């Protein structure tokens, strides 16, 4: 038996919503009424709030949440199956559709909602329909993106990410990325769609190349992927992806980690770190990735020095504006440090690398440096 909801705004909505969802013989028209903004009784709290926000907020957060989400999704299917895009008996049909699509987008019931939403998308009947001056096709896209139990819409999202028009579904490149990101393994394993993710990131790396803040933007995309698929994108994942897809050099600055230990005395490092350690010891080069910009090395005596230098460089590399500025600041920081156990010759190597990068910078930005001087 369910407990009596509390005498609060949340409780009032729950008192209305939960018994209805519990009732197998419920009147499905009630959902339409709620999506119009009516039928809330006591629960009418904020007249400016869109109904879908109210409904979603008041689903109980505990163990019953999935059950209630499913029930709400089933009622949404009833409404979607009635072809509300073609005919809907409501005071403001566009408001209902807007709220229905947003509601579907937030319910985690892809297997229930995907097909009716896709049927609606295939009917392509939303052109010119707007609510609050927002094209309703943006909202169906939102609902489609977040209701993908499989990868069936991959070509749609790839077209969008490549800037190619998609019939009945406007969207920018990042919407295509979002679509790929939210695809799911149909077997329900939680495994990411590796190939599609690699392709969409490659596409966006090409697109962003002309952008001033390309590194920052790309770094964000990588973090979003990692957040979406926790545990799957451990540190080497993006290095492997970059290697296979031949991402441009600037993307090195957006990859979260370019320094990791792969075994006893074995490390994957950014190429400038290899440049630093190779003059200190006879370093063994084991593997090369990303067109030679990332290297796996084996070191013997200088592991501690390598780790220390790599950590400083990592700090300045990640999300730096350019390779040159990253190295300039990183080598300067290393040069300024005087560690007691710094091996003989290490300081000279750092200074040499610093001078070299300064020369490179003069070649790249001669006017800026001259005026700064």
């Amino acid at each position: 038996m369910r407990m009596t909801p509390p005498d609060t705004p949340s409780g009032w909505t729950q008192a209305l919503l939960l018994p209805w969802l519990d009732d197998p013989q419920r009147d499905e028209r009630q959902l339409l009424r709620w999506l119009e903004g009516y039928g809330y009784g006591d629960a009418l709290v904020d007249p400016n709030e869109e109904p879908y926000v109210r409904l979603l907020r008041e689903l109980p957060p505990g163990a019953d949440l999935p059950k209630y989400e499913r029930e709400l999704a089933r009622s949404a299917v009833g409404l979607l199956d009635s072809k509300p895009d073609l005919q809907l008996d409501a005071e403001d049909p566009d408001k209902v559709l807007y709220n229905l699509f947003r509601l579907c987008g937030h319910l985690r019931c892809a297997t229930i909602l995907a097909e009716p939403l896709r049927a609606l998308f295939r009917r392509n009947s939303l052109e010119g329909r707007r609510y609050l001056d927002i094209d309703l096709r943006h909202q169906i896209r939102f609902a489609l993106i977040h209701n993908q139990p499989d990868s069936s819409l991959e070509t749609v999202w790839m077209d969008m990410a490549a800037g190619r028009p998609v019939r009945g579904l406007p969207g920018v490149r990042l919407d295509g990325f979002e679509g790929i990101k939210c695809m799911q393994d149909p077997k329900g394993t939680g495994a990411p769609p590796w190939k599609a993710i690699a392709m969409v990131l490659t596409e966006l790396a090409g697109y962003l190349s002309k952008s001033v803040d390309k590194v920052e933007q790309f770094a964000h995309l990588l973090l979003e992927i990692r957040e979406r698929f926790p545990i799957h994108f451990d540190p080497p994942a993006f290095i492997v992806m970059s290697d296979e897809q031949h991402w441009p050099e600037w993307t090195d600055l957006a990859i979260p980690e370019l320094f990791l230990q792969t075994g006893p005395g074995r490390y994957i490092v950014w190429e400038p770190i290899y440049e630093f350690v190779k003059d200190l010891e006879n370093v063994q080069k084991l593997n090369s990735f990303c067109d030679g910009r990332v290297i796996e090395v084996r070191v013997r005596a200088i592991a501690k020095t390598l780790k220390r230098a790599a950590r400083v460089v990592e700090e300045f590399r990640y999300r730096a504006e350019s390779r040159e500025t990253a190295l300039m600041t990183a080598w300067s920081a290393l040069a300024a440090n005087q560690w007691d156990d710094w091996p003989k010759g290490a300081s000279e190597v750092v200074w040499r690398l610093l001078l070299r990068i300064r020369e490179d910078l003069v070649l790249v930005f001669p006017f800026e440096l001259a005026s700064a001087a």
Partner: protein
Amino acid sequence: MYPVFQRYTLNLDAALDELLRQPATEAGLRNRAVARNLMHDHRVSPAREPAFQECAALHPALREALQRYYDTRVRTSGPDFLNDALNLNNFVAGARVAVDKMDPNTPLLRVINLSRERAAFQWAYYEWSDRRKDRFRRIVNAGGAAELHGALGEQLVGNAEAFLDAWFAASSARRERLRVPGANKPDGPVWAVLAKEFRREVNPRDDDDAARWFEAVGVAPGDWPAWAILVEYPLSEAGTLVRPTFPDSGGYPLHFPSPPSAPLSVGGLVMHLQTDPPPAVLRSEFIHETIDFQLQHWIAAGPHYAETKRLVAAGIQRQRLAHYKLLLRNYNGVSQWMPQCV
């Protein structure tokens, strides 16, 4: 027979009775408050009655009638509250008032609940042609309320100035678009208070809990936690400044009408939500059309952004009684006007 808008021209007895007979729970008391507000809000002119009557005929439940009135007559282009044929009795200052009594430089202050602006963020990301729209992508794609809060916080804490600059620019562009005839549903009215009165009670520099800000303007946000910002701007930028009526609030139960003896220039009177300690003074509130807020308005207000760190104080019975006491202390004829406040 019960009065409606302090007159006896409309008969809504059955519907009012239903609200007034509600039990003394928070929900029931809010319904009673809605009934009392409808009965005694003398500020609604006879000219506005027919439109409300139409809504009440369509939706016999009064709270739904109020919602419909709000959707079709307030949150719309050419709203009733700015129509001088319908609402001249509530015009306080601005272009439509013959002679301004209030100094046009009087600073107004608004608390903006960013967490409630979902549809506006969606517009900005989906429809705005400016490249800065990318800032809103994560906010728009946020799954639940917690994710939305996180996405907003990331932008505000990261670089509030750049984020809000883009937000204000997008809001201006949206406003422009929603003015086009045929566009549906612009924002509802802006609710503002006098900046000086707000600061007398809340010092946003020391008090960085936005729950305090909301309590001081009589609003309980639906989302918790919520992000809020303050904007301050001169009265002259607000267009026509209007004394609000209960229907202009969409039937918001935390509204309390101002008594007939309160002068028009005072505007409405905020019902303070914090009753421990009870509020000591009455403060004015006004409404006006949505304007183009800008970064400079946010800077003028502090600049301040904050999140709510606790739920806004509840307990409508205590809140209304405390407010009623203040009205009795400050104005004549209050008990004759509204013999019972809950």
